């Protein structure tokens, strides 16, 4: 299944050669379960489900109509209902940043928001940043600077960095900005580290992540 394909609501676990190769028997086992069981897994069912809610999401420039249990987080909607698995579930509590996406251009943790709260809104995930081999400048920079080791946090790091650079261009200060009244703080290593502190990398690729962000921002690395 092509992740960039336009869908209206489709089955979250359609099996293709690619998903079988990537996920092995897990996907096959899950595909044997009824639809309701899959949805329940994503929301940790407990008690009778409430009537589903309709939501229209603009994801990476394409419109998706979904009918969801209101408990479905935006992260689970992306991963379980739209097969956009680039956004990762790390802690599922807003502590790690692996699920960072951009809503109307602003970075957020999509594990801590409900899909139904974003009806009509425009969402950009890691899948929407580059196109095929034509990578986003931050993706290129992460490759060139080895800004990862295991890669689990990387899509969150890159989406977060896109949002961070936009914030910086708009003059957003940070906790380490010495003078809050200056129009825009220079992106020093300390500024980048503070502004990216919501993204944890347990492989500790931080020096390379900082270097990649500096390259993408056009700063000397």
């Amino acid at each position, binding site marked *: 299944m092509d992740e960039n394909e336009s869908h209206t609501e489709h089955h979250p676990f359609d099996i293709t050669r690619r998903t079988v190769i990537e996920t092995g028997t897990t996907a096959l086992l899950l595909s044997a379960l009824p639809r309701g069981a899959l949805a329940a897994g994503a*929301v*940790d*069912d*407990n*008690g*009778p*489900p*409430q*009537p589903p*809610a309709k939501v229209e999401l603009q994801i990476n420039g394409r419109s998706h109509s979904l009918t969801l*249990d*209101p*408990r479905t*987080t935006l992260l689970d909607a992306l991963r379980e209902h739209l097969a956009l698995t680039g956004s990762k579930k790390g802690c*599922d*509590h*807003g502590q790690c*940043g692996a699920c*960072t996406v951009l809503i109307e251009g*602003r*970075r*957020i*943790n999509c594990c*801590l*928001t*409900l899909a*139904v*709260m974003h009806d009509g809104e425009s969402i950009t995930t890691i899948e929407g940043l580059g196109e095929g081999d034509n990578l986003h400048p931050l993706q290129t920079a992460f490759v060139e600077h080895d800004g990862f080791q295991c890669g689990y946090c990387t899509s969150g790091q890159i989406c*977060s960095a896109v*949002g*961070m650079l936009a*914030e910086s261009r*708009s*003059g*957003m*200060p*940070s*906790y380490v*900005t010495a003078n*809050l*009244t200056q129009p825009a703080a220079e992106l020093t290593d300390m500024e980048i*580290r*503070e*502004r*990216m*502190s*919501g*993204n944890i990398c347990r492989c500790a690729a931080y020096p390379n992540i900082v270097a990649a962000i500096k390259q993408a921002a056009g700063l000397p690395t």
Partner: protein
Amino acid sequence: MKAFTYQRADTTARAAAAAVKPGTKIIAGGTNLLDLMKLQVETPSALIDINRLPLDKIEDTSDGGLRVGALVRNSDLAADSRVRQRYGVLSRALLAGASAQLRNKATTGGNLLQRTRCYYFYDITKPCNKRSPGSGCAALAGFNRIHAILGGSDHCIATHPSDMAVAMRALDAKVETVNPEGEARVIPIAEFHRLPGKTPEIETSLKSGEIITAVTLPPPPPGVQVYRKVRDRASYAFALVSVAAIVDSAQGKIRSARFAFGGLAQKPWRVPQAEQKLAGTPANTASFNTAANAVLEGARGYGGNDFKIPLTRRTLHGVLAETTRT
């Protein structure tokens, strides 16, 4: 998460009317509420989404202050040029809290209403009088490194986690609300949060269905504004101790001083007598000690958090030295 119904509010009045129903919760940024719902610390049967109500403006007030809508995001409030120029302590406190992603979602009203990060409050297998009244407090004799040294009780020693509220306490902010009958009320921030006493489950003076609509800031008081946060890592961690200070001094003499503390109690902690003791005194160690003694009157450690008593003293010293440096 327990199942719930979801509804988007189209007016503040309707949101307030709906919020009166037992089991109903208002959701705005959701960064704390959904976290707690996933752990079943919060189990609402209905959510009212207020995100699209027109409460997202920052406006000048006629007296030279600011009125901040309840839905203004933490990042937008921190970045507002008026806040950065006139209320630097508030901008800095907001930027000290959480992460950029969370600040982009979290709201002014929701920040005031966020719950404690006490480990036992978060763990539904443990006793907690705040989560489950009458079940006991596991923190009193448990791991209590992050807990209160002031204003606690035998029922609860949780702390309020907000940085923003600490700065607002130093600025004498006021919380504006509306109730289901449509009546507006103004609550001074000093009276907004409550100490635990025997009812730690009651955390604010809000009544059933009452919704925060705005926070107003009076004109900024004279002086240098500083927010200093001491924590276990340099960023993205809750305060062990934090101080919001506004100090007006000249030639080594303090004219007036205000300081509010985070991480010490279930509400931003401010001791007017301590501030009065500093007014008119020379900016030196003896004066700072006198002020710290007054702040820490009645302070009590529970083992793991004993270090907060000297840490509070030192942090206040550091902040007063910084703000009175000539």
